[in-house]
C-alpha cells in the first residue's frame, strides 16, 4: 500500500497496541498508525460522528480490528462498516486472541477481509505481525470517497 494509507488500529489493550505498533514498524511499515481504544471511537472517526477526530476525505484507510472491546465490540464495528456502501471498500483485518470458529465465521460473513489470531508465544506473535506488515506492504487499498458516510 502506498505511504498515504492510514492504518487504523482498534485495540483496547495498551500493551497489545504498543507491541503491534512496534512490530509493524520493525517489519517496515512506515504508514501512520492511528489507534483507538473503543469501538465507538473508530466509528465516530469513520462516520464523522461525535466530538473526536474524524477521518480525512479521499484517504485510503486500513483497519486492524480487535473483537473484544468494551462498549461497541469489533463485530458490531465491522458490521456497521460493511453496511456502508462507501466504507465497505475498506479492508478490515480482525486481530484477536479468540479462536472460536463461530466467531471467525461470523466475521467473514459480515465481510472482514482476514482474521488473524494473536499467538501468546512472543516469537510467534512477532512473526505474525511481521508477516502482516509484509502483507500490507504489497496490497492495494482503495480511496474512500464522498463526504459524510451514511
Amino acid at each position, binding site marked *: 500500500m502506498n505511504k498515504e494509507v492510514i492504518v487504523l488500529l482498534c485495540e483496547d*489493550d495498551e*500493551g*497489545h497496541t504498543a*507491541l503491534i505498533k512496534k512490530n509493524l514498524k520493525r517489519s517496515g511499515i512506515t504508514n501512520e498508525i492511528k489507534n483507538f481504544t473503543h469501538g465507538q471511537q473508530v466509528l465516530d472517526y469513520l462516520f464523522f460522528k461525535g466530538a473526536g477526530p474524524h477521518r480525512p476525505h479521499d484517504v485510503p484507510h486500513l483497519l486492524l480490528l480487535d473483537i473484544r472491546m468494551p462498549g461497541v465490540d469489533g463485530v458490531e464495528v465491522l458490521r456497521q462498516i460493511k453496511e456502508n456502501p462507501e466504507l465497505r471498500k475498506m479492508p478490515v483485518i480482525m486481530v484477536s486472541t479468540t479462536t*472460536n470458529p463461530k466467531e471467525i465465521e461470523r466475521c467473514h460473513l459480515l465481510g472482514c477481509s482476514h482474521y488473524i489470531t*494473536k499467538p*501468546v508465544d*512472543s516469537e510467534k*506473535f512477532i512473526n505474525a505481525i511481521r508477516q502482516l506488515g509484509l502483507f500490507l506492504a504489497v496490497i492495494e487499498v482503495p480511496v474512500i470517497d464522498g463526504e459524510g458516510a451514511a
Partner: protein
Amino acid sequence: MTEDSQRGASNFPAEGRFFMTIRLKMLIYFGTTSSLVLVGVILVYLFGIPFLNFQGAISRDQSRTFLNLSLAADLKKELLQRWIKRQSDDASVICQSRLVRELVGRLLFSDIRGPGAGGNGEPGGVSILDHHLQRIKKTYGFYERILIINDSSGAILASAGDVDDGIRPGKRGLFPEIQFHTKDRKIGITKDTATGKFNFFISQVIELNYDPEKYGSAHAILLMESNTGNFIAPLLHDIGDLGKTGEALLVGEGGELLVQLMHPLADGSRAQPLKYHIKAKPAVLAARGEEGIIRTLDYRNEPVLAAYRHLRISNDMGWGLVVKRDEREVFRDINEIIRNLAFMALLGVMTICVLGLFFAEKLSRPIRQLSAAAGELASGNLGTRAEVQADDEAGRLAVVFNSMAAEIQNWRTSLEDQVKSRTQALETANQELEQFVYVASHDLRSPLVNVEGWSKELEMQVKELDALLKPLELPADIRENIREAMEEAFPEAFKFIKSSTSKMNGLITGLLMLARLDRHVLHIAKINVNELISETLKSFEYQIQSLGVKIQVDDLSPCRGDLVQLGQVFSNLIGNAIKYGFPGRPVEIGITGRIEGKTAEYFLKDNGMGIEKQNLPKIFELFHRLRPGETEGEGLGLSIVKKAVNRMGGSIYVESEAGKGTVFKVVLPGVF
C-alpha cells in the same frame, strides 16, 4: 419414537395369526353346542336313554312289534293246539266207540285171514263202517279222508271215501305214516302222493284186544287226514295286522318245514315242505322247545323280528311256530322319520351356522374394533379412540381404553413439551457455556500476550544494552557484574517467564478443549472401529514414519459410540503410546479386541516406558503429568479420554509395568 414403535411392532405377532379367530371360535363353540344339542335330542328320541329306562322311538317300535308278534304267535299257538286237540278228541271218540271197535275187530280178523276167508268179510260190516265214517266225515266237514287201516298189510278196512267196496287191498307203504305203529297216536303232516297236497294227519290205534294169536302183529289204525289248506295254512297265512311282510311258519321237531312258505328262498327257489329244513334261528329254537322273541335273519337271510313258540303235540313230540316280520317294514316308518329328522337336522345345523355367524360377528365386533384401535395406538397414532358400542364388558373395555389412550396422549404431549423446554434450556445453557469458555479463554490469554510480548521486548532491549556496553571501558568487577546480569540473571528470568506463560497457555487450551468436550452432544451410532483407527493413524503418519513405529491392528468388532469422541480417545491413546516410548527402543503398538457379553473390549498395548505402580491410579486425573519436564503436553489427554469413554457408557482400565510397557483396556457398549 421410531425406535419405540419398532420395538412395539416386533412384539405384535403377524396380523394373519389373529385373523377371524374370535369370530371363528364363537362360531365353532355356538355351532358345535347347538348342533350337539340338536343331534343329541334327535338321538335320544330315536334311541332313548339306557340308564334312565327312557325308550327311544326305535326301541318303542321294536317293542311294539315284538308285542304284536308275540300276541299273534300266542294266539296262533292257542288256536292250533286247540284244533289239534279237537282232532285228537275226534279220533279218540272214534277209536273208543263200541260200534267201531266191534266192526273193526271182525274186519281186521277177516283181513288177516285173507280175502275170501270169510269172504269179503262181512260186506255188511264194511258197509256199515264205511257209512259210519262217511257220516263222520260229512259231519265234521274238513276231513279229507278217514280210514281204518291194517297197519301190517296196509289194507284199508274201512274208508269214508269209497263206500260199500269191501276191504280194499292197500299197499304196504302207501301210508308210511302209519307203518309200524308203535305209539298210540301219531300226529303229523304228510304228503299225499296222489294229489301232491300236504295233509295234517292223526293216526290212532283202535282199541281192540290185540291178541297176537288172533291178529298177529297187526293193528287197526284210524287215520284221519285233513288238508293243511283247510285250517293250518290259513291260520298261518292270516297275518292280520302284521303288515305286508308278516309271516307265520310251522316246523316239525327236526326243523322240517310243515307248511308252504309265503316267500321264496334267498336263491329264488321254493322250499318244499317236509323236505326243506329251516336253519333260521327262531325256527330252530322253537323246534327245540324254546320260546321267545328274537331279532335275526330268517330263511331268506332277511333281517326280521320274530316271536317263536313251541307246540307240544304229544308227549315226546313238538312243533315250532314262528311269527315274524321284516325289519325293513317294521322300521320303515322309523326310517322315514329318521330321514326326515336328518333333513331337518341338516337344515337346523345350517340355520345354526348362519345364526352363529351373525352372533359371532355381532359379539366380536366391539372386540375386534378395540383390537384394531389398540393396534393403531401401538403404531403411534395416539389420537385413536375406540367406538363404544356394546353395553357389556366390551363396552366398558372400550371406555377404559379410550381414557387410557387419552392419558397416554397427554403424557406424551406433556413429555414432549417438557423435553422441548428442557432441550431448549440445555441448548441455551450450552450456548452460554460455549460463549463463556471462549470469552474466558480469550480474556485469560490476552494478558499472556502482553507478558510474553513485553518480556520479549525486554529481552531485545537488554541485548541492545549489552551491545552498547561492550565497547566501553569498565572496571573488571563492574564488567563482571554486567556479564553476570547479561549472561545469567536476565536469561534465567526470561526463561522462567517464558516457560510459565507457555504452560499457562497450554492449560487454557486444554481447559477449552475439556469444556468443549463436556458440551458436545453425543451422536451414538454403530462405529466401525477398524476404519476409525486407520483414519486416526493417518494423522500420526509423520511420527510413525520418522520414528519407525510399528503398529499392529487386529480385526476389531464394531461398537456403539460417538464417532468424534471415540476418535479423540484413540488419537490420545495412540499419541501417548508414541510419546512415551522407551528410549532407544522402537515403539510397538498392538490393538486387539473381543466381545464380552453385551460389550466390546479394545486393548491398546505398547512397549513404552510404562507407568510406576504408585502413579497408576492418578493418571486419569486432571493435569496429571507423567514426566512434566521431559515431554510436551498439559496432562489433559487421559482425563479427556476417560471423560469421553464414560460419556459413551463405557469404562477404561490400565495395566502397566515400568520399563516394559502399558496396556489400556477400553470397554464400550456392543452392537446387537
